[in-house]
């Protein structure tokens, strides 16, 4: 009997289909656009099959080459990974539906190939249990992202793509150096194995490889000051790609950092510095977003800010903090993806990315504007939406211990939330309550572009009003992560 609940299928299926696009493109022509939908639909099935297994056992492990984990590459999905894999696959599926209508520019089939590879790479990065494999997945992700950022081939796209490429390449090299240092030190590449063997190392010995890996992943994960590519690249990419980049790619890189920090290095000594990174990222992202006139650029900066927020929450180091971080990750992924999708539809209709040109959208594109509002509310953390619960958790986790530092942290976080609220409300004012200067014919975006956003908003709403299962799940995921033994023992202890 074929067992569908195998995490490797999450990677193998879309890869197979991506290659299939290349094969079928000469014959199917435009028809290839349905292939990613099928691929991620199948993936979604696999994820749903995985959910009960992971919930029961806490972790699902799959081997390659029929050889036990430390010796061959393995793939492991524990609660935290499942969390993100679910989001990644879901976004991949929905955005590929969005692409059916959205991508009109040639060469469309190449776009679909790269798009499939991008989402696959992200999934890969999340599920892999091997450090070098993570590097490879990182490269799959970033190289497809480079290509997609340059998809429009215009001035902005070329500049943004090149900058992204240079920074991403440096990041990849640094990550590789870090991985290699760990190999030199331990003689193995399996995460669990390294985690086991690195315990005998001193703080000092662990610092340099950690710094390299952190920097490498941090570049992709948009941590300040490594995130300068992001505000250029996200707007330059087609909106559907931006929603994947913003929604899950940075999150996946942060996941990598979390995995490395907690599971491999068990590195609580550096946590104060990580808090610094989180807060700086948050501050710079949100303040810069406040000044943007280009909506996609604004959203990109907001992504930086949100990344900073959940990275900050993670770096609190407590189970509660991590729980908050995971909730915020989920919230950010769903909401930001929705925002980019909706904004893509609006730009599609209005033909401008300037916020001031969105006047009167609230009346002409009612549904889009409504979806935008809900997603923005959730992102800002206004009740009763899902973002509120995650923000609540983050603040509660911070103030578990009340001292000068935590108060200062909270003040910064909340002040930045205020700025975020300020610019989102400004956009909404323009959209809903400002009359358009000239009467232009603006029609609602096509239905196929709205359906993904609607689905995401429905998910956000369901989570908003029924958050308990997710919250409990996040708590368990955080506890598993902090406990470490679940992961390490089940990977090393065979199947």
């Amino acid at each position, binding site marked *: 009997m074929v067992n569908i609940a195998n995490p490797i299928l999450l990677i193998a299926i879309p890869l*197979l289909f991506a290659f299939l696009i290349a094969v079928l493109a000469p014959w199917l022509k435009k028809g290839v656009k349905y292939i990613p939908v099928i691929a991620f639909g199948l993936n979604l099935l696999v994820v749903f099959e995985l959910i009960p297994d992971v919930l029961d056992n806490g972790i699902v492990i799959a081997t390659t080459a029929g050889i036990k984990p430390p010796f061959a590459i393995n793939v492991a999905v524990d609660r935290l990974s499942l969390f993100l894999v679910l989001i990644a696959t879901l976004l991949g599926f929905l955005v590929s539906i969005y692409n059916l209508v959205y991508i009109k520019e040639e060469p469309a089939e190449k776009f679909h190939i790269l798009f499939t590879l991008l989402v696959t790479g992200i999934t890969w990065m999340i599920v892999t249990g091997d450090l070098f494999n993570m590097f490879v997945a990182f490269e799959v992700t970033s*190289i497809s992202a480079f290509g997609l950022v340059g998809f429009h081939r215009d001035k902005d796209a070329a500049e943004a793509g090149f900058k992204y490429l240079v920074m991403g390449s440096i990041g990849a090299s640094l990550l590789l150096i870090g991985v290699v240092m760990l190999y030199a030190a331990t003689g193995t590449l399996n995460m669990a194995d390294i985690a086991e063997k690195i315990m005998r190392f001193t703080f000092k010995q662990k610092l340099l490889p950690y710094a390299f890996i952190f920097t490498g992943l941090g570049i992709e994960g948009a941590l300040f000051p490594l995130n300068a590519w992001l505000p250029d690249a996200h707007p330059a990419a087609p909106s559907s790609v931006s929603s994947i980049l913003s929604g899950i790619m940075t999150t996946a890189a942060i996941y990598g950092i979390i995995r490395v920090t907690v599971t491999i290095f068990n590195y609580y000594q550096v946590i104060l510095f990580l808090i610094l990174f989180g807060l700086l990222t948050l501050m710079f992202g949100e303040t810069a977003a406040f000044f943007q006139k280009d909506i996609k650029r604004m959203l990109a900066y907001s992504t930086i800010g949100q990344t900073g927020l959940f990275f900050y929450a993670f770096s609190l180091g407590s189970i509660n903090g991590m729980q908050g971080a995971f909730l915020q990750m989920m919230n950010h992924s769903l909401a930001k993806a929705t925002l980019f999708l909706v904004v893509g539809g609006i730009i599609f209709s209005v033909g401008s990315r300037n916020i001031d040109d969105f006047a009167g959208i609230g009346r002409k594109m009612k549904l889009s504007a409504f979806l935008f509002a809900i997603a923005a509310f959730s992102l800002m953390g206004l009740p009763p939406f899902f973002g509120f619960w995650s923000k609540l958790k983050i603040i509660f986790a911070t103030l578990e211990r009340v001292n000068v530092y935590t108060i200062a942290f909270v003040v910064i976080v909340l002040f930045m939330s205020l700025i975020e609220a300020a610019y989102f409300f400004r956009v909404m004012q323009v959209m809903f309550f400002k009359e358009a200067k000239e009467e232009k014919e603006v029609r609602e975006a096509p239905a196929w572009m709205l359906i993904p956003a609607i689905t995401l908003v429905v998910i956000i709403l369901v989570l908003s009003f029924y958050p308990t299962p997710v919250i409990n799940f996040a708590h368990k995921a955080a506890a598993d992560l902090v406990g470490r033994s679940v992961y390490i023992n089940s990977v090393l202890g065979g199947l």
Partner: protein
Amino acid sequence: MIRKITYGIFLGIIVLSLILFFAAFPFGKNKMAVGKYYLKNDINQTGAANVVTAVTLDYRGFDTLGEVTVLFAAATGVAILFYVLEEDKKKRERQVYPNFVVRVGSRIIFPFILLFGSYIFIHGHLTPGGGFQGGSIIASGFLLLYLAYPGERVNRSKLSVVEGIAGITFAGLGLWGLFTQGNSFLFNFLPKGQLNMIFSAGILPIIYIAIGFKVASEFAGIVDDMMCEAVCSGGEK
């Protein structure tokens, strides 16, 4: 100038710290942990004489799948960036007359390059070399052809069909192993054969041949895109 010196010092600090780190793991010392296992069990587990191939394709075959994917993505990305509408392409094409010696010489050499490349990737599991090396050698053969006949182009859609099929072969073999035997991706389900024979090591040669085709067609595609760009839009002024 101050910038240069400052960053020189910074980079010096980084190099120093790296040296400091690696001082604990000196050059030439045996640091193997999993490596030892591979060397010990290579012959009975994979049957490939070349342990590097065994590691690349079997133990770490999943990495290689990723690597192939990266190359695929890069080739696609280059194709996107250099995408020119078909009609524009034809308009801009122009005739170039390269050296006679180059033209004739490349015609003679090209089959040999192909043969050499194929040899390398077919014997990937026995001798040094493999799909990547062989594939890139074949691609450099294509490069030679481009130098000789700048006006001509490869049929890109056929090239992409080749890469697609090669990729499907790789992923499909992996899935075959997963679904039929062992419940493990990339399971080596074919008989291992005898060491140092061409038909040995199970699925490894097949994968390496697929990779060879894939790498060759992808690099050829990249070169093709680059060259066409250079020629089609009248590059050098």
